[in-house]
């Protein structure tokens, strides 16, 4: 109901308003809504990766035998495919949040592009550092 003033009588009158339902498929209506839902789903894969990492760390602390049997599971075909899927979603999650962080912290004197680019540079430096450590080890 909306209320409006009748200009002749001066009385307030109730008007019957029309409410439109939002279909469950609202997120398929626009590309940006779909990408948003994809970002939300991607966080499930980020969590999954964190769980996998924890499982491996636990296995590592459980001795060589336990680690090797866990590693065998992680080397199986379906696990590799799952990790590729996880990687794609984690990358997507990262790209979207780097862009959003530009928006959040990119106020003057900084700019959104500057903040987003700095994120990528830090990510690159950390990644190269980790790769270097792994190769060295």
């Amino acid at each position, binding site marked *: 109901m909306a*209320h409006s003033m009748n200009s002749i009588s001066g009385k307030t009158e109730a008007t019957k308003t*029309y409410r439109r339902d939002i279909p469950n498929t609202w997120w398929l209506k*626009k590309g*940006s*809504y779909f990408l*948003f839902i994809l970002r939300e789903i991607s966080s499930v894969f980020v969590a999954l990766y964190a769980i996998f990492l924890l499982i491996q760390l636990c296995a590592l602390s459980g001795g060589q035998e336990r680690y090797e049997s866990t590693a065998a599971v992680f080397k199986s075909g379906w696990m590799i495919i799952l990790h590729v899927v996880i990687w794609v979603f984690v990358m997507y999650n990262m790209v979207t949040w780097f862009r959003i962080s530009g*928006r*959040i912290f*990119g*106020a003057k004197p900084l700019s959104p592009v500057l903040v987003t680019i700095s994120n990528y540079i830090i990510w690159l430096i950390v990644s190269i550092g980790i790769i270097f450590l792994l190769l060295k080890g």
Partner: protein
Amino acid sequence: MGEEITLNITRYNPDKDGKYTTQRYSIPYKNDWSILDALNYVKAELDGSLTYRWSCRMAVCGSCGMMVNGTPRLTCSTYLNEFYPKEITIEPLANFPVIRDLVVDINDFMAKLKSAKPWIIRKNKRDEDDTSKEYLQTTGQMDKYYQQTLCINCTLCYAACPVYGLHPDFLGPAVIALGHRYNKDSRDEGKADRREVLASEHGVWKCTVVGDCTEVCPKHVDPSAAIQRTKVDSAINWFFSFLTGRK
């Protein structure tokens, strides 16, 4: 016969049949006509009962917002030539109840706007009435909030926000952006007053950063950024009040 363009316009009259329908109108195509000009042509020449809001015709008053081919737009600054020769669908702004044809009920928005206290608050209430006092501000201080002062309350950002559509309790983009505008004003001392509204369960934390509010804003207010910055402020405040035990 010159070129023509077809408009598909939503019709709803609660006093007549109460049906929510679409009506087709063929009108002359003029390269320099805005959608609002086209609606004015329909009203003047074809159907005087068509109801819609408008006033300034120059993207200032914020009253002519409608869904144009599914996107919230100001109809006075959206032109037929963007769509011609394709048909144009004009609907009332999404996420708001429809009063009649293309007119929506924005009372909910107005009430929320007031709740965020979008005005300068001083701790000493006498300051607010004392017009002789001057509050100097540097351009740097003004830069902090200037972007949000451009808001014209057109509510396009509400029509673009699926969170507001699904959870009408959400304060929504423009209200938070305007609360943020006053929080960032060096003359203001009302941050704590606004916090209970902006940081409430219906405030900033309901936003899931879809970002469409910023995309559709005709004044480049960037409400999405204002919401995220208010989240950062509110998180910092929570952290310090947790450490120091102050409310």
